[in-house]
C-alpha cells in the first residue's frame, strides 16, 4: 500500500504543479461538477426514486389499460390516476431529505442549485414517465376513449406540478423525510371534493384541464415549493437521525 494516490488532487481543486491551461481547468471543473451532482443525487436516493417513478408509470399504464376506474362518473374516474400522481409527488418530495445536515449546508455552495435542479428534473421525469404510461395504455387500447387519462396530459402536468409543490412545501415545513404528508393529505381533500362536488380552484384536480384558475393555483404552489426548497431547503430533523 502506498500513499501515492493521496497526492492526486481532488477533482475540481486548483492545480498544484504549475499553471494549467483554460481547457484543463474547464475539464477539471466539469468533472468536479459531475462528481458533486452524482454524489448529491446518490445521497438523496434519486436512483431509487427513479425506479419507483418508473413503477408508477407502469401502474398508470395498467390502471388505464385494464380500466381500474371507480364507478360513478367522470370525477370518480380520476381517483386512481390522481393517487398515482400523488405517489409520484410524494416520492419527489422525500428525495429532498439530506443526510448530512449542518456541515453540508455550511460547506455546500452549490446546494441550493442542486436542490432546485433535482426537484425540477425529477418532476419533469415523473411527468414524462406518467405521460408515457398513459400514452402506452391509449395505444394498447387501440385508441379507445376508455383508455385515456382523464383530463389528458395537461391535467396530469397541472396536478403533478401542484402536488409536487405541496410535497416540497411539506419538506420545508416538516423535513424531507415527511415531504409525503402534503400530497397525501391533499389527495384525501381532493377525494372528498370530487365526491361532494366541490370545485374551488385550490383543489385543482376537480377543475377541467384548461381551467385558468386551477392552473394558476397549481402554478403558485409549485413556484412557492421550488423557491422555498431552493432557498431554505428541507427542515433539518431534530433528534431523529432521519432515514437512509
Amino acid at each position, binding site marked *: 500500500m502506498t500513499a501515492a494516490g493521496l497526492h492526486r488532487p481532488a477533482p475540481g481543486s486548483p492545480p498544484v504543479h504549475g499553471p494549467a491551461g483554460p481547457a484543463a481547468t474547464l475539464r477539471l471543473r466539469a468533472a468536479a461538477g459531475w462528481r458533486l451532482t452524482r454524489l448529491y443525487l446518490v445521497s438523496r436516493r434519486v436512483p431509487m426514486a427513479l425506479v*419507483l417513478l418508473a413503477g408508477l408509470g407502469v401502474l398508470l399504464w395498467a390502471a388505464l389499460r385494464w380500466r381500474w376506474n371507480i*364507478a360513478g362518473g367522470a370525477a370518480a374516474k380520476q381517483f386512481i390516476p390522481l393517487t398515482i400522481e400523488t*405517489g409520484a409527488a*410524494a416520492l419527489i418530495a422525500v428525495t429532498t431529505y439530506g443526510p448530512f445536515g449542518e456541515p453540508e449546508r455550511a460547506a455546500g455552495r452549490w446546494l441550493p442549485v442542486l436542490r432546485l435542479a433535482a426537484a425540477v428534473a425529477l418532476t419533469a421525469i415523473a411527468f414524462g414517465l406518467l405521460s408515457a404510461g398513459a400514452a402506452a395504455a391509449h395505444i394498447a387500447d387501440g385508441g379507445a376513449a376508455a383508455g385515456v387519462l382523464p383530463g389528458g396530459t395537461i391535467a396530469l402536468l397541472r396536478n403533478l406540478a401542484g402536488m409536487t409543490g405541496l410535497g416540497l412545501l411539506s419538506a420545508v415545513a416538516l423535513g424531507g423525510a415527511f415531504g409525503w404528508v402534503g400530497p397525501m*393529505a391533499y389527495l384525501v381533500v381532493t377525494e372528498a371534493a370530487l365526491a361532494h362536488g366541490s370545485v374551488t380552484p385550490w383543489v385543482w384536480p376537480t377543475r377541467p384541464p384548461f381551467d385558468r384558475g386551477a392552473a394558476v393555483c397549481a402554478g403558485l404552489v409549485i413556484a412557492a415549493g421550488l423557491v422555498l426548497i431552493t432557498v431554505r431547503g428541507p427542515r433539518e430533523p431534530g433528534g431523529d437521525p432521519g432515514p437512509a
Partner: protein
Amino acid sequence: MTAATSAPARPRAPRAARVVPLSAWRLLRVELRRNAMPWILPLIAALFWFDSYRPSIQTEPLYVIRTFWNLGQGGTIIDFGPFVAAVAAWMGSRDGRRRLADLVTATPRPRWTAQLATWAATAIWAVAAYLVFVGVMFAMYARQGVGGAPPWWWVAVGVTGVIAFSAAGFAVGVFWPSRFAAPVAAFGSALILLMSSRTGFTHTSGWAMILPTNSNGNFQNDSGISYPWLPDLPIARIMFLAGIAAAVLGVTGLPARAGGPGLRRAAAVIAVAGLALAGTATGLASSARLTAHGMAIPGLHDAASDAPIAYTPVCGHAAGVPVCLNPAYGRWLPAITGALAPELAEVAGLPGAPARATQVATGYTGGPVAPPGPPVATGAAGPPQALTLTGQPAVLRLSLGMLNMPGPCGFCDGPVNGTQFAGQVRLMFAHAFVGAGSAPGSPAQRAVQAALLRGAGIPFAAQPLVMGHTDNFPGAPRSKSATGPIYAAARRFAALPATARHAWLAAHLAALRAGQLTLKDLP
C-alpha cells in the same frame, strides 16, 4: 423467638410467572412516549373533520344516513389508513434507519418482541385517536338529535382496519428501512382503499363483500331505526382485517435475527393462523345473502339479530286520523301530518280510507350500491312503494326509509323543501288509494289520482313535475304537460262538486281499485 423460626425452611412456592413481564410494559410505555404517531394526529383530525364529519352533517339527521359515507363506505378508514400505515412504516424502519439493527439484535430481549412493542405503541395511538374522533363525531350527532342507533359494529370494523394498516405499514418499514418506506406505505394503502371502493361499487355480493370500503348490504333504509344493525358482515370483516394484521406481524418474526427458533416458530404459526382467519372470513363473506334487514351470513347469523327494535311511537293527527312514527322520525311528524291532511280529509268516510297511519320498517332490496333511499326497481313487479294501504279497516303504512325527508339530503340534488316533500307524499297516497300498487295504474285510476291531487292543492300543471321528482314512482310521465285524455277526464271529475265526487267514489271505489273502470266510466 418462636418455633417457627427454628423450623426448617420450606421451599417457597414459585411465584406465578407474569403473563407479560413488567419490563415489557416498561418497553411499551417508552415506545408510547417516543412514538411518531401523535405528531400526525392533528393532520388526521383535520382530514377527518373535512372528509368524514363535514359532509355527513349535510345529510338527514339519521345515523344510517349520516354514517353511510364515513363508516359504511369506509371514509374514516380512508382518512386514517394511509397516514397510519406511513407512520407505522417510519416506526418499523427506525432500527434500520439508525443502523441499530445489529445492536438491538444483541440485546437480551428478542428483536421481534421489541418490534412488536414498537408496533403496539403505534397501533395504540392510532386506535385511541380513531375512537376519540369517532366518539366526538357521535357526540356531535347526539347533540344534533340524530335519530336511530349508532352503527357500533362498523366502528369496530374501522378500529380493526386501523390496526391492519398499522401492521402492514410496520412490516414495510421492518423489511425496507428506507426513506421511501413511509410514502410507499401511504401510497399503497391509498391505492388499496381506492381499489377496494372500486370493487365494492361493482361487486354487490360474493368475496368482494369482505372489502373494508364496500358499503353494499348494510347501510340501507332503516338499519338501527326499525331493526338492529346486522353484525354478520362486520364480524367477517373484523376477522379478515385481524387476520391480515396477524399474518403480516407474524411474517416480521420470521427472519433469523427476529429471535430464537421457538419464537420464530410462534411467528410462523401466527402468520399462518392470520392467513387462515382472513381466508375463512373471505369464505364467510362469500356466503352472505341479502335479507330484509341487511347482509346475513349463515355461519355467523344469530336469529336474535332479526328482532325488531322496540320503541314507543310518536303520534299526531292528520284530518283526525292518527299518524304514528318511529321516534327517530319524530322531527318530521308535523311535515307528514301536514302532507297527508288534505287528502285524508278528501277521502274521509270512503270505504278503504285509512283509519290510522303508521310507520313500518323498510326492507333491504339489494341492487347496486346506493345510499339509503328509494329502492331500485327489480323485476316486472315495479318498485315497492313508500305508502301502501292494507287491512280492514285500512291502515296507511309509511315506509319512510324509502323517502328523502324534508331538509338537508346529501344524496340527492339538493335539500328537499317542505312543498316538494308534501307533493311526493300526496302523490304516493293518491296512487295507493286508487289501488295502482307498484304499477302505473289504469287510465281511470290515474285520472282519479290526478283529481285527488288537484283536490289536495297540487294543480294539474304541476303534477308531471311532482311525478318526475318522486324517485321510483311507477309510470312517471314522459311529457311535462298535463294534457291528454287522462287529464281531460281528471279535469272533468275534479270539476264536480266535492259531495258528488265523494258519492261517486263511495259507489265505484272497489271497481276502480280492481281496474274494471275506463275513462268513459268517470263522470
